[in-house]
């Protein structure tokens, strides 16, 4: 096994435990193996940066992780619960409550405005509309986006849209934030801003972050670096380990972020 885990002081249980993960896709008559036996532990409070060339299986790994892509073999457990032995609706429920997602390209429900898009994360979890909008407004305030609350999302700049996406990802108080090249479409200034937000979410609110990136400059933000190549984990580097016990987990991410997250 190339990916030798460096988690010497893992006294806490992993928040995500990936064991022997394989995934192959049928392309024509052939099966193409995209993931070839991935083992990876992610500990609570880590900022994991996933590096790798295009086509090495990063996105497939992320999709499998959040319960959208059933693996061919292997297990993924989230705080000890096996993700793929749950029903589809139960996995949807996990995405509602436990994961916050940020994509390279911000996705919007076009008929809703900015604050309603952020509130949607809460609505699917069963909030009533007034409370959801109130909390979403509060989240936007933390990011200095309160004035854009009633805009149509596509009226905002790329950087602003990405910040709103982050807002939406954290508003439901998730355990883990999964980001797939969140700065891929941004200029360097906006990209730096977005990275700082992720860092403060990680440090101030103690959330676990799993981010895919191509940019080696971001190494400085991460506590764990994972290098992937051809469907395998090539190398794992733990730079410093910040362990967070479940008890220490801040109850509300938004309350934890003091003042402005920027």
């Amino acid at each position, binding site marked *: 096994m190339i990916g030798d885990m460096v988690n010497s002081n893992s006294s806490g249980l992993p928040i995500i435990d990936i064991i022997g993960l394989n995934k192959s896709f049928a392309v024509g008559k052939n099966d193409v193996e995209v993931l070839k036996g991935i083992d990876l532990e992610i500990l609570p409070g880590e900022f994991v940066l996933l590096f790798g060339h295009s086509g090495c299986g990063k996105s497939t790994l992320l999709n499998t992780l959040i319960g959208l892509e059933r693996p061919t073999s292997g297990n993924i457990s989230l705080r000890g619960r096996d993700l793929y032995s749950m029903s589809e609706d139960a996995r949807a429920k996990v995405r509602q409550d436990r994961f916050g997602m940020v994509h390279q390209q911000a*996705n919007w429900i076009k008929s809703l405005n900015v604050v309603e898009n952020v509130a949607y994360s809460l609505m699917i979890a069963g909030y009533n509309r007034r409370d959801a909008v109130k909390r979403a407004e509060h989240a936007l305030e933390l990011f200095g986006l309160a004035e854009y609350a009633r805009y149509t999302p596509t009226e905002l700049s790329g950087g602003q849209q990405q910040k709103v996406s982050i807002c939406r990802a954290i508003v439901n108080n998730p355990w883990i934030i999964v980001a797939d090249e969140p700065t891929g479409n941004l200029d360097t200034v906006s990209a730096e801003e977005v990275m700082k937000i992720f860092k403060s979410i990680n440090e101030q609110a103690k959330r676990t972050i799993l981010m895919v990136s191509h940019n080696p400059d971001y190494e400085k933000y991460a506590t764990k670096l994972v290098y992937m190549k051809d469907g395998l984990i090539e190398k794992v580097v733990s730079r410093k380990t910040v362990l967070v016990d479940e008890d220490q987990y801040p109850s509300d991410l938004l309350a934890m972020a003091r003042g402005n997250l920027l």
Partner: protein
Amino acid sequence: MRFSYLLYLAYRNLFSHKMRTILTAGGVAISVGFIVFLISFGLGLQRISTDQITNLEALQVLDVSIAKSKLLSINDETMNKFTKLGNVEEAHPQVSSATKISYGKSSIDGVAYGKNTEYLKLEDIKLTAGRQYTNESTDEAIINVAAQNQLATGGDALGKEITLDVVIRSELLPKDEKAKQFSKTFKIVGVVNDKSAPFVYVPLHIFTDNGVVNYSNAKVKMLNKNDVNQAKLQIENMGLKASSIKETIDQINQFFSIFQVILISFGGIAILVAALGMFNTLTISLIEKTREVGFMKALGTMRHDVYWLFTLESVLIGALGSVVGVASGVGLGVVLNSAIFGLASSTGNQAVELFYIPAYLIFLILGSSVLVSLLTGVYPARRAAKISPLDAMRYE
């Protein structure tokens, strides 16, 4: 997700495509409005035809007349037989003869009827002025509006005196007696609402006192309208002719039920076209929203929430269309009814309600068109619910 939020989301989705929503709902509205209009027209016509002919009591009455054969006649003996048939409530005869009606210098040809008040009641005559005579009165008569207008009464015949010159045909008299004539003066006590040909009603004894023994025809009232058919057979077996208004009404109702089926099939075609339009809109909107739906599911939206979101959009379009359609269909009927009413009262005719639809039918139409839109939404909604989030998010 809460149902109220799904409803809100469906509303927002429809609202963000105003033109498309209005056009699709407009299609539904036109077809529903069309159906409401056609049905209320059909029911209105049917109601006019049956209402004008009869009140409920008239359904129990048989009209008896002598058949073409001159051998048989209706006389007191026959009337006795009628009352002895089973389930007969009452039976009353009338006599009719040609007459000359004179008032002052004016004189017209008409018909004189000898009938008692019981007969008038069976006929359900409507007096526009005055009162009925009594069976015993010797000098009281009722004329119709036609006679009042044609005689120089100045439009008010009440209390005026007319002279009748009545010809009694031989059939009405005992055997071997020749036709004869009598003349008598009457005071007009009532005017009956009828504009056809001039006629006069006088008590029956005016004729019998002048030697009449055979009657022209009779009315037989049954205890129950279901007895009418059997009594008709019995009377026909006596060699007489019997007819009831029930037959006519049954025929009219039969005609209108066929008419309604035709109207409803036209409406059904319109609904089908609207449903196809709605299906098309929903499918296009689904294709357009594939990426969005994929993303919603990636965020953790449950399949059944996606399913209900699309179904609700369809139901909202259907409900909007049917409410507007029913309102305009009923509204058009009301407008035309009042136009007819206005026209009728300005020309002095009796107003009719040409469009009529009962409330339960309105709700039935509303309910069924919402049901149709629900069914139309099922297939696109199922497709939406089955969308794979990853495939959809790669979809451009």
